[in-house]
């Protein structure tokens, strides 16, 4: 393949935003390719397009990511543009205002989107007063407040060598790459100046929050605390989730909610680990008249799983899927690079990919039962629902049955 794919990240992310200026990391990520060095925004973008380079930055919860993709004959130009973006972004006020306008437009659009509203409501209730309780993009109020100085300060505090991870895949070898990376990142300070973020577990589990919206369907997100990535039970939790709601056409939630009852098009669960928290969450959207029924079934499945665990057959099938499908995560250069970046962010050994399936194979039914009891407990969930659900209980719930 005549291409080079690079994925990198600076640890920090939107969790480093000052609360009153939430959205700073997102603004910085959006501005890095809006002019750098001698090139103004248009000139920089023209250079990118003339060489068909793809350069993107994105602010995540715990890191600010970048990705670069180039055809091999445009390699030097691609890395030079990256060097400029990382080190010499101009952050001119006209560009800041334009990007601010775009971000505000997106916030306004999202503000009436049922899925976004449900997610925001859930996060706020789960993580009160914590950076994870805010949407990374910020609010209209906080984004209006962000100044050029705030953006520069964020960059200076977050862009450093010790919190940087890089993965490169494709038509380049390590000997060639080394000096190039030195050139791109070498001028950054050795250490970042990150604010400490405290660990937190989802609060208000057992509560239901309803946001009224005049639409025919209720969009629901739900979840409760789970595990951080370094927890020894993490892999059993992934297996558990696959059986419960992770398997697209095979999970218990799929079968009970969609296949048997036609209650929803989409119903799922996932496990998500952050640097300072962990969640088992999920979502469903169903017509207002049946929202209460759908949620009752989901809570029932959570509670039943905690009590009974999986069957041997479910466990065998889940392990087969999880081990067999692992290779599909690495079937393009970009996906390999992304996987290697994530492994580094998770502090896993670089040969983790080779040993990962053995970890899944080693999971026993007792492991899954243990982790289910530990994580799902009594099946209570923090629920956020947007729509006009009928017969939906608000406030304290009694948990599953």
């Amino acid at each position: 393949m005549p291409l080079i794919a690079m994925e990198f990240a600076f640890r920090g992310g939107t969790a480093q935003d000052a609360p009153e200026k939430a959205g700073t990391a997102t603004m910085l990520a959006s501005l890095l390719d809006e002019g750098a060095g001698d090139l103004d925004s248009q000139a920089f973008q023209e250079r990118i397009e003339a060489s068909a380079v793809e350069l993107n930055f994105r602010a995540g919860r715990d890191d600010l990511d970048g990705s670069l993709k180039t055809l091999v004959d445009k390699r030097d130009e691609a890395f030079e543009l990256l060097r400029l973006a990382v080190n010499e972004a101009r952050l001119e006020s006209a560009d800041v205002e334009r990007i601010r306008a775009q971000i505000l437009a997106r916030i306004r659009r999202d503000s009436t989107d049922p899925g976004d509203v449900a997610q925001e409501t859930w996060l706020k209730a789960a993580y009160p007063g914590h950076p994870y309780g805010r949407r990374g993009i910020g609010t209209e109020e906080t984004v209006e407040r962000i100044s050029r100085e705030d953006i520069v300060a964020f960059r200076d505090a977050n862009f450093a060598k010790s919190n940087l991870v890089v993965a490169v895949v494709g038509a380049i070898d390590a000997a060639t790459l080394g000096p190039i990376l030195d050139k791109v990142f070498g001028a950054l300070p050795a250490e970042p100046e990150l604010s400490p973020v405290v660990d937190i577990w989802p609060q208000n589990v057992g509560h239901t929050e309803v946001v009224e919206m005049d639409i025919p369907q209720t969009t629901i997100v739900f979840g409760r605390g789970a595990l951080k990535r370094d927890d020894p039970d993490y892999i059993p939790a992934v297996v558990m989730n696959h059986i419960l709601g992770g398997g697209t056409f095979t999970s218990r939630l799929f079968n009970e909610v969609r296949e048997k009852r036609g209650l929803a098009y989409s119903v799922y669960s996932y496990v998500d680990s952050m640097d300072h928290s962990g969640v088992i969450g999920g979502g469903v959207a169903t017509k207002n008249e049946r929202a209460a029924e759908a949620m009752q079934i989901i809570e029932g499945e959570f509670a039943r799983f905690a009590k009974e665990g999986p069957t041997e057959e479910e466990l065998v099938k889940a392990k087969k899927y999880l081990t067999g499908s692992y290779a599909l995560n690495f079937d393009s250069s970009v996906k390999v690079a992304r996987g290697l970046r994530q492994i580094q962010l998770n502090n896993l050994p670089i040969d983790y990919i080779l040993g990962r399936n053995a970890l899944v194979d080693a999971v026993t039914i007792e492991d899954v039962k243990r982790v289910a009891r530990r994580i799902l407990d009594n099946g209570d969930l923090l629920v956020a629902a947007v729509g006009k659900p009928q017969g939906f209980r608000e406030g304290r719930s009694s948990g599953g049955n």
Partner: protein
Amino acid sequence: MTNALVGAALAGAAFGGAAAQNGGPAAGPKVETFTLENGMDVVVVPDHRAPVVTHMVWYKVGSADEVRGKSGLAHFLEHLMFKGTKSHPAGEFSNTVSELGGQENAFTSYDYTAYFQRVPKETLKTMMEFEADRMTNLVLTDDVVLPERDVVLEERRSRTDSDPAAQLSEAVSATLWMNHPYGLPIIGWDHEIAALTREDALAFYEKYYTPNNAILVVAGDVNKEEVRALAGETYGKVARRADPPPRVRPREPLQVAARRVAVADARVRQPSVSRVYLAPSYRTAQGDDAYALDLLSVVLGGGPTSRLYRALVVEKGIAAGAGSWYGGSSLDDSRFVVYGSPRPGHSLAEIETALDAEMQRLIDGGVNMDELERAKTRLIADTIYDLDSQASLARTFGSALTTGMDVRDVIDWPERIRAITPGQLVEAAKKTLQLRQSVTGILESAPAGDRT
């Protein structure tokens, strides 16, 4: 910036699925084709980087082939194809794919319906056996049909009924196509989905799901001879059972009236305007007009250096976003779209005026070589980047072959893009960007409780 009017293909039983894209790989993989005795076409795209294959079956039938009054039937049948056969009851196929660590899904568009699995190469034959089986042996009972119809209605509620921008998009399409069935939503109108029956689905299935109306696309760690042998033992055993009618849909009359539609809803906090022009597709275009329109969409509105973005967002500062797109892969005529969303303090009328001015400036003043070259570089590079993804490669061939193009067209696409001149681009713009064959869609806010 995104716009509501994206995506011609409707993702199927699960999630994801952007519109199939035009064109194909530049360097071009070594693609081979042959036809089975029963008329099923086969495309093999070797990719030996990993021991996996992408197995797809494309049926040359989509929502535009439905009869009036049964909108949503093609998509409904796609869902029902997961309900099992005489020899493989519901869930067995999906469970098998899952145990193999594979991925699967399906999607329906105006012109095609496709099913795919991504699996380890050793299991290709198993996939073919299952897929060939459900080509003719589908079993449907009301016990599975009725809950699945509710699932589709929920899908519609998620995609459209809870989203004013999606509702506008439906109204724009219904208005643009005065006679052609592309005016009907792929997922169907709510009341017509609710009335679809098991018998409707089976009749559609009997009429269109036959090997002589299907294309097998296999991309991955295989060669032509392996695929020929496996396909012969599986699909080759399926008898033809119908001769689908020629795909001739009602054509548009000469359009003479510019139309406007609007959705005003309290939930709209970011207004936007789009102009949708009737445009030729790769199949219906004269000469190289479709290639020129693909380039026009990049020059005019394909990113931060495009005409529309530069004028409306950067220079005038009146818009938060602006752009254009063209969807050329359809069997019949297609559309070319320009759009913009205002910054606070600026009106939709200002945006619309500025969009018109930029289109006129391009038609009057032409296109310079620099911007055309950048656009070509971008489009051609995308096809090379696509080589990195086996699934998108398979998809490129499948969508081309079900919308009236052939493998040669896909392979030659970069060369023909390269050959387009500024003059051709302007000519295509002149022909296409005519108000009389357009609909302007307005998405705006309304006081709470109001819904006009």
